[in-house]
């Protein structure tokens, strides 16, 4: 019986969660029969189960809601706001009761009656039939699924990790043993099976990010209602999958960001209208996968972050000096939002003024190896971008050694790796300071920190610049840097963790244990006292850049045909491998699809027949292009003595670097030539088209969109309305009439030039 009740609780909770989107959708369109049915089914199921389990309160509530919804279904009642709210309240109460059932708490039943009474509003007949008409034909098939306990999954995952490590050990022993083809073949098979199982188990841990997004419509609706704002939520990319644990880790930060956006970002309808915007604000939440990272973007079209207000706050709070404040760039001002104890709202509100700030959001994201970026444009909105790794258990790491022992460093914390020889190191008392590009960084010797005997002289060591989560950059001197590896990390025993230096343990391919170093733990242990705060550092970096203005930091690489070329590091966003089949010749250019986007591809004349192509992703801040190349040679900061090219083109000129001629890419020409035009961020004018006309959909719509207009969705307000002769339009609409007949009112529908002209004129009117 207990088991049954647990199933009931879990099932009801899942259903309630999945339903919250439907409820909001139903509220927006009470005539939507599909949603109504979905909600009806929920309360009906709950009612049935309650009868079985003898839970009178739940039964009473669900019965009342079922009754009211049945009336709506039968057409004897209209779903008005009062009813929607009453049903919502009941579904909430059901959720609370189920929660209470699970934890064994008791919940007062006083206002159950009130909730039920709220349902019995005046019954209206007549109009109802009309309101419930036109359901959208949409069928959703449910996938077959079973319910599993989470720890069982964890046990399976652990078992598989062990199997992978056991396989590695076996592989090592086989390499040492005399060759036996039959054994090797059998081993290959086992290997493949384990890989397959690991893949499958990993996938069971993956969850669609939908489960994170499904609660948002309700959250947005409730917040907007509380604040008297109108907010339209667009969630996108719900099918992206992410490690279950990761989803839980992101839930709170995401909720907080959404709250912030609605509370502080999106203005009240009056304010929006006054600013020339639509009364309803838009909140876009999207997720996509890029490599082994997940990108989650939250963008609103509100007032944006007031950087100057943040600066004033920071000044008032004594976080920065007046001199620092003057030197902040706009982006740095906005980044102040992540400083502890700064909140842009002048008044603390019930919604987001709960003492949890963006600094906490950032700390939480960084704790799981993620990054948060913020971009804000005054009166156009704020875009927050969260990047997190796909899973927690497999960590990309760099192996280094101190003395003869190997350690791992999580790659997410690594900023840069340098040779000691290229860096000035000063000894200040007992401490060492490394000066790297005019930045003074505390230096920790790994061997000294761990008390390991080290024979390598300092000059032959390598420096790993580490930036621990929420901390400052410091340099770690190691005896050698080995390799990048994906490590299956497990927690270390408490007696080992007590050192405060480690984040976990893992096994190397040769079967020996490796300790994963904890960058912030090491900094603490070494007693690094960060005098400079983050702002100072940003300024310092800025000043250093100014001093080194004549120096250009260049990425040297080998092109596909073997030449040496260089491109400024500043325009390189990242380096990625793309599969050959992601490259295609389309619309006059070679293009590559990366992470759900299509980028123009330069640097190669044709798509490779097979295999992978390495590309540089170059950005000018707005547009992005991919540049195919063979391999990276080095990164160098240089004062260039450039021999300019005779004619403008892909190559700006030739310079001598390390005794070899290197062609410098003319990035200006490259973007002018390759970047997709019309990617400016100004919102596209919206154009409404008559619906249901195949000619419009198939012939006119592509033309309109090609001209840079966005076609309005049903019911959306538009800047321009295109109408046929027979269409009725609102009196105040900005109309362009088209006609199918040779004679008559408006523009003939195949008169392209006249149509374009009329649209441009209408656009002018709309803006005037």
């Amino acid at each position, binding site marked *: 019986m207990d088991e049954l009740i647990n199933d009931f609780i879990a099932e009801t909770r899942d259903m309630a969660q999945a339903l919250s989107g439907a409820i909001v959708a139903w509220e927006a369109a009470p005539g939507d029969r599909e949603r109504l049915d979905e909600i009806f089914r929920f309360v009906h199921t709950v009612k049935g189960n309650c009868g079985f389990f003898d839970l009178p309160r739940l039964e009473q509530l669900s019965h009342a809601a079922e009754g009211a919804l049945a009336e709506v279904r039968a057409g004897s009642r209209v779903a008005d706001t009062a009813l929607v709210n009453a049903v919502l309240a009941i579904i909430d109460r059901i959720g609370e009761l189920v929660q209470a059932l699970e934890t064994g708490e008791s919940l007062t039943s006083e206002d159950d009656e009130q909730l039920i009474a709220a349902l019995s509003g005046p019954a209206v007949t007549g109009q109802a039939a009309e309101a419930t008409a036109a359901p959208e034909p949409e069928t959703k098939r449910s996938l077959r699924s079973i319910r599993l306990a989470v720890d069982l999954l964890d046990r399976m995952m652990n078992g598989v990790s*062990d199997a*992978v*490590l*056991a396989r*590695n*050990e076996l592989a090592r022993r086989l390499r040492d043993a005399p060759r036996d083809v039959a054994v090797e073949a059998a081993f290959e098979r086992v290997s493949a099976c384990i890989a397959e199982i690991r893949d499958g188990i990993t996938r069971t841990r993956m969850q669609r990010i939908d489960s994170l997004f499904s609660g948002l419509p309700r959250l947005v609706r409730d917040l907007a209602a509380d604040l008297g704002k109108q907010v339209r939520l667009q969630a996108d990319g719900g099918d992206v999958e992410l490690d279950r644990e990761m989803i839980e880790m992101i839930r709170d930060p995401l909720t907080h960001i959404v709250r912030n956006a609605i509370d502080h970002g999106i203005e009240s309808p009056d304010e929006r209208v006054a600013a020339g915007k639509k009364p309803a604000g838009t909140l876009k939440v999207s997720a996509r996968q890029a490599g082994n990272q997940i990108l989650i973007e939250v963008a609103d079209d509100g007032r944006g972050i007031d950087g100057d207000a943040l600066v004033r706050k920071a000044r008032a709070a004594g976080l920065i000096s007046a001199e620092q404040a003057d030197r902040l760039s706009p982006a740095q001002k906005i980044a102040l939002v992540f400083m502890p104890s700064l909140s842009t709202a002048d008044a603390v509100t019930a919604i987001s003024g709960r003492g949890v700030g963006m600094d906490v959001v950032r700390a939480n994201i960084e704790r799981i190896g993620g990054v948060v970026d913020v971009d804000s444009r005054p009166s156009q909105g704020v875009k927050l971008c969260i990047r997190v790794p796909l899973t927690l258990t497999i960590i990309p790491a760099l192996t280094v050694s101190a003395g003869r*022992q190997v350690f791992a460093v999580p790659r997410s914390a690594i900023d840069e790796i340098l040779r000691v020889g290229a860096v000035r190191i000063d000894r200040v008392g007992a401490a060492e300071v490394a000066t790297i590009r005019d930045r003074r960084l505390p230096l920790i010797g790994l061997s000294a920190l*761990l*008390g*390991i005997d080290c024979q390598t002289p300092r000059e032959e060591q390598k420096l790993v610049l580490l930036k621990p989560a929420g901390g400052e950059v410091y340099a770690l001197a190691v005896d050698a840097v080995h390799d990048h590896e994906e490590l299956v990390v*497990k*927690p*270390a*025993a*408490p*007696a*080992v963790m*007590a*050192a*405060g*230096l*480690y984040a976990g*343990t*893992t*096994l190397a391919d040769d*079967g*020996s*244990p*490796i*300790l994963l170093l904890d960058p912030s733990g090491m900094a603490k*242990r070494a007693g690094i006292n960060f005098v400079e705060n983050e702002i100072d550092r940003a300024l310092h970096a800025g000043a250093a850049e100014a001093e080194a203005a004549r120096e250009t930091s260049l990425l040297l690489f080998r092109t596909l045909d073997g030449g040496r070329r260089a491109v400024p590091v500043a325009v390189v966003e990242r380096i990625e491998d793309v599969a050959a089949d992601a490259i295609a010749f389309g619309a006059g250019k070679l293009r590559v699809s990366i992470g759900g986007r299509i980028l123009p591809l330069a640097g190669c004349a044709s798509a490779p027949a097979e295999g992978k192509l390495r590309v540089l992703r170059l950005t000018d801040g707005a547009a992005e292009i991919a540049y195919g190349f063979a391999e990276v040679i080095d990164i160098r900061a240089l004062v260039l003595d450039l021999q300019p090219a005779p004619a403008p083109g892909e190559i700006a000129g030739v310079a001598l670097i390390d005794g070899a001629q290197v062609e410098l890419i003319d990035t200006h020409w490259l973007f002018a030539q390759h970047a997709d035009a019309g990617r400016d961020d100004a919102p596209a004018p919206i154009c409404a088209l008559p619906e249901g006309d195949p000619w419009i959909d198939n012939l006119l719509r592509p033309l309109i969109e090609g001209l840079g207009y966005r076609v309005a969705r049903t019911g959306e307000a538009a800047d321009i309305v295109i109408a046929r002769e027979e269409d009725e339009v609102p009196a105040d609409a900005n109309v362009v009439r088209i006609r199918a007949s040779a004679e008559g009112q408006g523009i003939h529908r195949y008169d392209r030039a006249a149509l374009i002209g009329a649209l441009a004129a209408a656009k002018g009117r709309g803006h005037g």
Partner: protein
Amino acid sequence: MAELLLIGRLAGRRVAFPAAKVEGVVELEGITPAPGAAAHVAGLSALRSRVLTVIDGLAALDLGRADEAAARGAIVVPCDGHTYALIVEEVEDVVEAAGPPAPLAAPVGAGWDRVALGTVEANGELFLLVDPFLLIAGPAAHAA
């Protein structure tokens, strides 16, 4: 059924461990130090693709340190989701206890008092019954 005991030699004494708490006996193939860890942690080792936290039995008793070169025999003890290897000087045998353990009547010596569960008789001999979990916890846990 009577309790099974694992008889081993630790710090020169023959002692009994409850066999139910012991997963097995291993020869350690090499120990990776874990600098900065608690004093009784000798380091890490690997057993069938699992990481073992190696506990120096002598240090856990606060009676010095095991001779790194000589001591390679260890008993494997799973505890709280981690697996430990407890270095002992010698592992003799698994025997059946003649009866339930008896409480200690008098102190049994520095270090030992903390880890001893009592005395137990087997094969006509009386052994000190030692709790491997208390050894793993180390001297610091007692002090705290």
